[in-house]
């Protein structure tokens, strides 16, 4: 992570959280259980709140503002990992992506919490205190899925499909940590695949961007809300 500038690191994390928050919010009103409807919507709000705080920190350095960073860039300028872009309105895949992301995010936040930069370290610690509940939520689902044959099969199918994307959330030594953790948690083997790394984007991001920035683009530049 040293090779990247502070702003780049902040934007990677912010874009991941914004786009994942957006995707999670797609369950609002249609989740398979009322309780999960509430929980997933709440997680989505948290992620977008994290994105906002990270954008604000980056914006101070760039002389910009959080809304401009969130909505005024072209789709190719976003630094999010393809994992968070995928539109996966299927519960097992949603849970698998949620868990894979939270597992990777914990590794990345641990590094940022130890940063020499007090603003970055402070914000990472604050974010991590909320992510702890997301991890509890994700972990309980993994245990529940692994408790039955059907659950294990569905989780395995989802992980097989998402694993190349999950690998792309982190790189270098942190990616190895992710592999270790995921391997240690699952009773089945992971596929041998090449990572779908950050820097490339799926077509699904473009569609999401159209929707996400529609209101902002419809208003004249500098409109006050």
């Amino acid at each position, binding site marked *: 992570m040293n090779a990247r500038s502070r702003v780049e690191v902040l934007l990677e994390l912010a874009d991941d959280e914004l786009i994942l928050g957006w995707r999670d919010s797609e369950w609002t009103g249609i989740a398979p*259980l*009322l*309780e999960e409807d*509430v*929980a997933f919507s*709440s997680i989505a709000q948290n992620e977008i709140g994290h994105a906002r705080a990270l954008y604000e920190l980056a914006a101070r350095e760039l002389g910009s503002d959080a809304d401009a960073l969130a909505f005024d860039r072209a789709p190719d300028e976003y630094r999010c990992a393809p994992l968070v872009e995928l539109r996966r309105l299927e519960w097992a895949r949603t849970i698998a992506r949620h868990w894979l992301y939270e597992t990777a995010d914990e590794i990345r936040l641990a590094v940022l919490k130890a940063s020499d930069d007090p603003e970055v370290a402070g914000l990472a610690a604050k974010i991590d205190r909320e992510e702890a*509940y997301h991890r*509890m*939520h994700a972990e*309980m689902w993994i*245990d*529940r899925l692994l408790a039955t044959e059907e659950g294990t099969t569905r989780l395995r199918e989802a992980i097989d499909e998402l694993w190349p994307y999950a690998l792309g959330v982190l790189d270098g030594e942190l990616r190895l940590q992710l592999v270790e953790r995921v391997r240690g948690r699952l009773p089945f083997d992971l596929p041998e695949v090449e990572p779908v790394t950050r820097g490339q984007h799926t077509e699904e991001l473009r569609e999401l961007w159209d929707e996400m920035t529609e209101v902002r683009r419809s208003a004249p530049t500098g409109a006050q809300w």
Partner: protein
Amino acid sequence: MIWEVFRQERKGQPFQHAGSVEAPDFRFAEIYGREQYGRRGESEALWLVPREHLSVVEGWADEFDLKYRRVDGYSIKARLKEARERAESR
């Protein structure tokens, strides 16, 4: 499985019934309880109780109007009026 949720708003205050969540075990109930009854800072603590673990008591017999045993006692307004009318008619 239904879990009844009791919510304490501030330290020292009594827990009051707030609603319920459906969850297969305590781990799920805890997460759902946190999300639905605590994330806006509205609770100091929650009690989560499986509905089947609550012992329900209901049905009360009061066949002989033994109101004097209750703290609110008799309503004396009507009796007082009767007594006054009796006194005046004498």
